[in-house]
């Protein structure tokens, strides 16, 4: 349906796409696979008219077509679901979809729009409530709305950028069923991901990008795990050796203690109720839960972003309840937030400047009139080398891919030997290799005596890393286990609230 020929896109410090050829066919799911920074997102943003290609051309049904703006792309029947969804939270589902319809009438006909939504959603298994406010929908449902929006706007090629990143396992399965239906109706679909399992599960054709070039293209039938990994990394992966490396639980002094902590949420947030939590030195405490059940608030409460309306927070025995963030930071609390773009970095600063932000006082020279950039670079470099992460200090952080940004934040937060690390979705957006390195770095920090709070939705990750596992549901701790004494099924039931509260403490 659409072909890309020789598409090249250069950013100031990187060549993101280098002469890429890609054929997207109707009735086919095309998996686009690659490490962080391999150029997947950039390529599709070029195709969607978000960036302008420096060279190359697009062919629509064999005819050259110019795509310079997202409008052109939509006219060519291309629709894109962005990594961070683009719905308007204050609008209802129907309003969001109507906003996107081509040839929208001056006077809206809500029943007509709702009829069309109902028709399409029934056909592809995309059940949504047209009158519901988007702000009240789960991420998975919001994604359905995004897809519906594209279908109703008559897109024939759907681009899904890291669509599964924010979804729970059963939501991923549901999404793949929807995609199957769409394929049989002759839609062309591009699925951007770095998860092998997913492309093998649902794609018909798989193209692997590496360093901005096409490393190879395979039919699903010819593809195997090993082949794809080889294409992605050009070398064999070190086997993740996490299990069995856990030393016997050391009962170090408690680094963090929360006693009966409650918070009051503003707006759409979740309030915490009566949280009892302690993290000892040399211990990783995993927090399992479906996102939106208070994980963000828990981290923010510990960090000092959110006020505790009740309860006490002790850091290494000192009462620091409701102390500001900089006090917590200077007492050795590090934080890897779930969204590095909005929560941890300043887009128009260079990576180096961003690296200095958590420790401005430490790096200040001459009473603050100068900043010791050499020291920043040296410190960060040594952490980056330990992790095996490449860091482009001079790049503007806005130009980094999601994974590179996450690596930047991880490097920054693991420098300076923090005594307490709050890691929220540590490996989100990271490729396999980086994820392993990040996990190993966490274990190293633990072995050096740091206390770690690990928030994740990836049960496999939680089970392999945690020394203790807590389940958070609706702002409450509903279960506490040793990983060896429980199984994912139990945790899964607690996460979804389908089992009564049962806490068995050590």
């Amino acid at each position, binding site marked *: 349906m659409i072909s890309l020929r020789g598409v090249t896109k250069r950013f100031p410090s990187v060549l993101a796409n280098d002469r890429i050829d890609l054929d997207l066919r109707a009735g086919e799911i095309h998996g686009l696979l690659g490490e962080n920074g391999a150029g997947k997102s950039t390529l599709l943003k070029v195709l969607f008219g978000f960036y302008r290609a420096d060279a190359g051309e697009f062919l629509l049904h064999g005819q050259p077509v110019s795509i310079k703006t997202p409008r052109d792309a939509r006219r060519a029947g291309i629709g894109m679901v962005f990594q961070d969804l683009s719905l308007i939270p204050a609008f209802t589902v129907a309003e969001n979809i109507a906003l996107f319809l081509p040839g929208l009438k001056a006077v809206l006909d809500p029943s007509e729009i709702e009829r069309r939504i109902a028709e399409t959603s029934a056909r592809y298994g995309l059940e949504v409530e047209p009158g519901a406010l988007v702000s009240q929908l789960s991420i998975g449902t919001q994604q359905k709305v995004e897809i519906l929006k594209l279908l109703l706007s008559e897109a024939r090629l759907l681009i899904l950028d890291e669509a599964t990143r924010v979804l729970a396992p059963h939501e991923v399965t549901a999404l793949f069923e929807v995609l199957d239906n769409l394929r049989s109706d002759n839609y062309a679909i591009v699925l951007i991901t770095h998860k092998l399992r997913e492309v093998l599960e649902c794609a018909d054709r798989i193209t692997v990008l590496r360093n901005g070039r096409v490393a190879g293209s395979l039919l699903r039938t010819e593809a195997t795990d090993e082949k794809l990994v080889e294409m992605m990394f050009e070398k064999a992966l070190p086997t993740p050796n996490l299990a069995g490396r856990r030393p016997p639980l050391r009962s170090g002094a408690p680094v963090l203690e929360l006693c009966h902590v409650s918070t009051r949420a503003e707006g759409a947030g979740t309030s915490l109720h009566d949280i009892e939590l302690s993290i000892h030195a040399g211990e990783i405490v995993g927090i399992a839960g479906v996102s939106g059940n208070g994980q963000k608030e828990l981290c923010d409460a510990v960090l000092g972003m959110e006020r505790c309306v009740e309860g006490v927070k002790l850091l290494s025995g000192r009462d620091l309840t409701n102390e500001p*963030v*900089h006090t917590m930071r*200077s007492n050795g609390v590090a934080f890897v937030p779930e969204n590095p773009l*909005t929560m941890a970095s*300043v887009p128009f600063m260079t990576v180096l*400047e961003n690296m200095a*932000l958590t420790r401005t006082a430490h790096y200040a020279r001459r009473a603050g009139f100068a900043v010791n950039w050499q020291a920043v670079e040296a410190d960060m470099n040594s952490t980056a080398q330990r992790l095996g992460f490449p860091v*482009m200090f001079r790049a503007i952080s806005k*130009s980094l891919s999601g994974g590179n940004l996450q690596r930047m934040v991880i490097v920054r937060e693991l420098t300076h030997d923090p005594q307490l690390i709050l890691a929220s979705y540590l490996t989100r957006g990271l490729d396999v290799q980086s994820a392993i390195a990040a996990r190993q770095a966490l274990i190293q920090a633990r072995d050096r005596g740091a206390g770690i709070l690990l928030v994740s939705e990836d049960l496999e990750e939680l089970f392999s890393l945690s020394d203790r596992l807590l389940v958070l549901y609706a702002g409450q701790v509903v279960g506490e286990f040793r990983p060896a004494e429980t199984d994912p099924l139990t945790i899964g039931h607690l996460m979804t609230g389908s089992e009564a509260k049962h806490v068995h403490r050590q």
Partner: protein
Amino acid sequence: MSTASSAASRPILPARLRDAVGRNLLMVLLAVLSFGVILLLSGKDPIQSYADILRSTLGSAYGLSEVVVAMIPMLITALAVALPARIGLINVGGEGQLYIGAAFATWAALTLGYLSPWILLPLMMLLGMVGGALWAFIPGYLKAIGLVNETITTLLLNSVAPKVVGFLIFGYWHSAMDTVKTTNFVPAARLPAFFGTRIHLGMVLALVLLTAFWFVMKYTRWGLEMRAIGGNPQAARRNGIPLSRYLLSIMCIGGAIAGLAGMSQVSGFYGVLILNFSMGLGFMGFLISWLAGGDPLGIVLMSAVVAIITTGGNLLQLTRDLPYAVINILLAFTLFVVLARPRFFEGKKA
């Protein structure tokens, strides 16, 4: 890799500077052209009128000095807007802060006139800054505790401040002859002037402040923290930068700078506190800061342009029989062109 990119970035800077200057001048040119149409419509010869403006300002040493005099309060009030703008605060209250600063400085000039100028002038500067800072503290505090947006409060306080000054003049400070102004300041309370012109020490103050602003933003720890807040307040807070402390203190410093502009006007320019003396200097600073995009060099350039327009405009109403309001139209055109900023003027984006 890192050395190569830093080496490459060095020669880029002058080019960027040249671009910025060229871009600003182009925008002014566009405004001038559209205003020419207005002049034509009202039956005046635009070329003659512009020639008049230029001759009266840049054509003679005296004219030039008057432009510089007019620039002084503009530079300072523009900085009072540009600094808070770096952390996302919109200070529309320069006008009010300037009045209160002027009133504080006047108190010292009137009651402590016996002191040596070496003590009195620094004291007046300090008081002017304290006055402006206090006036800005109100919106700053309300903003820092998350209660009210500073844009509204600073704007509203602008109409309160001149009334406060009026109360002081009418009630206590007015001179024996005149109810709308104080007695003239003693020489010790006057900022010294240079070269037999009306250019006074305020010019030096303004340039020092602008240089300090540039240096702080570019090289210091506080500049780094402020740029972080301006770039992403949420991330800055999570990274341990004390956000509300900055909001409050930068608002107060902005107010202090505007207060200093008030002090410099009464002490350097008028030598007396007159009711409603400012006539919108604070707003002019706001305009200039936005025209210049908060850039120190841009502030100097834009102040020069605005000063030429206003001083030249004074003459225009005499020689060309144009109402002074016409000058406001020209200023409005300039603002409009900058805010509507056509894509053409923006640098190439990657």
